[in-house]
Each structure stands twice: as C-alpha cells, then as structure tokens.
C-alpha cells in the first residue's frame, strides 16, 4: 500500500499537460520555426550560464604567466594544479571546511527535523487554534533575517555565543518555508493510511516516523537539499558573528583570500572559489531532477 502511495504524485491532477508534450508557446504543436528558436534559445542560455563556469575553471588551471598575459588566452596551454595547492596553503582551508561542514550539518538537520515535526503537527495533531499557529509561521516567513541581524547580534552577544558554532547556527535553525512545503505535501497523503496506523495502536511519533516520513521522502529530501545549500552558502550572519580565522566558514574564507590576493593572484583565488562551489555542485548533480521538479511544482501550486 505504501508503495502505491509513494508512486502517486500529488502534483498530478490529470488536467495538467505532461512534460515533453509537443505543445509550444501558445498551444500549437511546435513548428519547425519554433523548434529552431527553442534550440537557439537553449544554446544561448547554456553558453551564458557556462561562461563564468568556464572562466572559473580555466582560471584555476592557468599559470600566472597565462593569466597576466598582454595577449589573453582562452585555454591554459600548460594546465596546472599548483593554484589549488597554493590556495590551500594561503588560508586555513582545513578549518574553513570543518566549520562549514559542522554548521551546515547542524543547521540543516535542525531545520529538517523541525520542518517535519511542525508540518506533521499542523496537519495531523488536533489542537485548538491550530490556524493561529500557522499564521504565526506565516509572519516568520515575511521577516528575512537581514532585517533583524542587529538585535540578533546583541542577543547572541549577551548569551556569550559570539564566535561559537551555536552562535552561527541557532538564529537560523527555525524554519518556515520548508514547513509550508511539507505541510502542503502532508495534506495530500490519504487519511486511511493514518487511520490504519491508529487502529494498530501506533502513537503520533510512531506514525510520523514509520509512515509519514517514508511516504513523503521526496518532499523531505527537497527541503533538506534547499537547507543544506542555504547553510553552506550563508554569508552575512556568519560574517558578523565570527571574529577569528579559526571560526570562519568557507564563503568568508574565500572573500578574505580575495582581499589578500585580489587582482594579483587570480589563479589562486579561482582555485579557492572551486573549493566552495564543487561540493554543492556534486550534491546538486546527484539530486537535480527531483529537486528542480519539487521546487517548480511548489511554485505552481503555492
């Protein structure tokens, strides 16, 4: 039964056209002209997106002679990995990785656990004024952290958490957006499934862990990936709340390296930039199809 439910996609209501249907711009099957325009647009967009990526990778592989040549080269003639070694030695990247990894894992797991429990409670647990709780979360969604960084910094400072992992993670550990995403998904789950669990005598916690979570795994994974990426890339808050090299995370580390080396060492700076980008790209490559689908569906339904 669970298997059948897992296969059921909550976005599919039958009226929507399927991806890949030959139904272009204004509803007519694609003409040759439309197809040519489509492929041209695809090529242009991919080139535009590819250029910075190309320039980044080539820069990291070029020698200084090639980078600072009066006659600029497109490709490195003698590709070298020296820049990576140099970058790793110029700044404490081992520390940066450790800090980024710890804060990302702590922050993202806190978010995912709270998104699941909150969404579950909002959908399946009886409580008077449940809608008010929901409205409170709606308000949180409208207040970006940037607006409240000043008072939050004062709070974290008062608690003595400046320059600690707790100080980096805690203010951003609660989650509104992911809660909405999951709440929406949980509402599409069939109630018979939960009633069956109740008849078996399972409590809420067991129902949540053994039935709702496995069934909603794709949506939870999407939430998790968005959280991981957001924490990994976070810049403003960790910049404010950390004060020593030992506690800096990767984005702050490469920004610091840029300030140090700047226009004099593009190869090293590009190599360091790859240190930040590559892990996220790997995660994305692994998960891209269903993440992109999940986000697109969320926007269309939302």
């Amino acid at each position, binding site marked *: 039964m669970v298997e059948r439910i897992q296969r059921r996609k909550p976005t599919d209501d039958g009226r929507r*056209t399927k991806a890949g249907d030959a139904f272009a711009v204004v509803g007519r099957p694609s003409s040759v002209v439309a197809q040519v325009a489509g492929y041209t647009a695809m090529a242009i967009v991919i080139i535009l997106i590819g250029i910075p990526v190309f320039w980044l990778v080539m820069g990291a592989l070029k020698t200084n002679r090639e980078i600072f040549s009066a006659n600029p080269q497109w490709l490195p003639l003698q590709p070298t990995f020296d820049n990576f070694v140099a970058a790793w030695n110029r700044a404490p990247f081992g520390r940066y990785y450790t800090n980024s990894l710890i804060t990302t894992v702590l922050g993202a797991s806190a978010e995912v656990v709270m998104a699941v429990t909150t969404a579950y409670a909002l959908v399946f647990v009886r409580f008077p004024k449940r809608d008010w709780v929901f409205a409170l979360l709606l308000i949180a969604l409208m207040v970006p952290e940037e607006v409240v960084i000043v008072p939050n910094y004062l709070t974290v400072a008062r608690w003595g958490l400046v320059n600690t992992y707790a100080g980096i993670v805690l203010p951003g550990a609660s989650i509104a957006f992911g809660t909405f995403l999951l709440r929406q998904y949980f509402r599409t789950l069939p109630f018979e499934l939960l009633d069956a669990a109740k008849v078996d005598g399972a409590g809420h916690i067991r129902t949540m862990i053994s039935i709702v979570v496995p069934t909603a795994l794709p949506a939870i994974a999407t939430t998790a990936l968005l959280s991981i990426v957001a924490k990994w890339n976070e*810049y403003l808050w960790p910049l404010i709340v950390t004060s020593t090299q030992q506690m800096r995370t990767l984005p702050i580390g490469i920004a610091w390296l840029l300030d140090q080396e700047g226009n004099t060492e593009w190869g090293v700076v590009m190599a360091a930039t790859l240190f930040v980008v590559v892990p996220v790209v790997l995660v994305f490559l692994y998960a891209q199809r269903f993440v992109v689908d999940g986000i697109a569906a969320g*926007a269309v339904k939302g």
Partner: protein
Amino acid sequence: MHIQRLDQRVRRDRREWLTFIALVGPNLLLFVIFTYAPLINNFLLSFSDYKMLTGAREWIGLQNYRDIFADSQFGRIFGNTLVFLSASVGLVIGLGLITGLLLNQKLRFRNAARSILFSPTILSGVAISIVWIYIFDPRYGFLYTVLHALGLSSPNWLTDPKWAMPAVIIVYVWKNLGYATVIFIAGLQAIPKDLYEAAEVDGASVWNRFVHITLPGLSPIIFFLAITTILSSFQSFDIINIMTKGGPINATNVLIFRLYELGFTQFAIGRAAVIGVILFALMLIVTLLQVRYLERKVNYG
C-alpha cells in the same frame, strides 16, 4: 459511565495538545527569540542610543531617523535600492518569460538544459561574485578578452560609477534567471491544454491565444516571481559586499549594505536599526500586496 467516557476524552485531548506543543514548540520558540522579539527590539532600538561596549541604552526619540534622513547620501542609497530592484525584477521576469516560452516545447536535452539553467541559483553568492570580478577585470578578464578580440576597449566595470550598478545587476540576473525560467516552464505546463484547443477551434490567432490564455494563466506565476525576486533583491548583500563594497562613491550602496555598514563597521546600532525598520516596511508592503492578490485569486481556474 457517561462521566467516565468524558473524562477519557479530556485526557486524550490533553495528550493530543501536549504532543502538538512538543512537536511545534522548538520551532516556534526559536522564532519567538530570533524573529518576533528582535523585530520589536529593532523597532525600539531605532529610537535609542545604544553603546556597543557597555550595553547602555538611552531613549532619544526620533534622533536616529532625523540623522538617517538628513544624510545627503540616503536619497542616493534609497534610489540605488529601487534601481537595483526594478532592473533585477524586470530583467529576471522578462528574460525568464521569453526563455521559458521558447523552451516549453518538445526539445531534446530539455531536462538537462533545465538543470543547467537552475544551477546558478544553488551556487554561493560569494563565489559567483568573485568569479565575476575576474570576468570584469579590465585588463585580464573574460570581457576584456572578448572586447580586445573585437578591437574594443573595456570599461573599468567596478571602479567606474557609471558601470558599477549595471555590473552588479548583470551578476544578480545571471544568478536568478534560470530559476525564473524553470518556474515559468512549470507554469506553462500547468495551463490546461483544452483552453488552447477551444481557442484554436474558434480561430483565435497566435497573439490572441498568448494574450488571452497564456498570460492570464501565468499571472499567478509572474506574481509569485515578482514577490520572491523583490524580496531576494532587498537581501543581496553578498554580491554588493564582495564586488563593490557599495562603491565607487556609493554608486552601488543599497539599504541592506548600508545596514551592515552602520551596524557592524561604524557600530551605530540605533541608525542601523532605522534602516532595518525601513527595509521591513518595504517588505511588508510587498507582502501585503501579495496577500491582497491571493485573496482575489486571479487565475485561470
């Protein structure tokens, strides 16, 4: 017997409520501490003189507001914020719609293209900004290489007050265009096919179908994207701080950067709080527009 059953129900209800509180509590508590309370605290701070070192706080009424509005640069910073915002929103939505329309047909590699398009969204804003500084480098950058090959000279993108704003807008659009395109494609596919079929039977022209079916069908998507792009452009601190630090001569200074400058480089907590209040007011207006719109529920359904 009857009383006993009632008693049982009360106990069961209480158990449900306790479960609810246990499940929602931590999330809500964190929001109280780090979102709701600071929002009020920020408002109070904007009327105070706060000494970072001693933590002493003195009520000074509207003085911080007067200081902010008397600052000759504030008008420029506010204007920059609006320019950055409208250019970002306009370009992301306009170009996203065109690309989405062109890609919304049976094309080979479309799914791969969609993932590539989406990828800049997940990359670190800091990393992207650094790469773009190298691209904009007027002597060794990619754009120089292209312009050089064409026999043209390159502007000093990031140090010329005329070019700095366009440069940061280009980077913002590069990062967010693919996301908009992906959302547009999803939106286009959600428009019921039978509407187009009926219109075709009625002999409606391509343009008519676009104006009367596609655009209204996309209106919720356009609105969703406008709101998310506006909110994210208010927050794009990373691009500004890495690429220009608000310069040259405040040419790219926007509200969020000003907040950081005042609060964390000049330690003028009260005045930073004023910028926070202004930012929040702007976002509140945007969100209220969204709520009003959602109440009207303009769509094809």
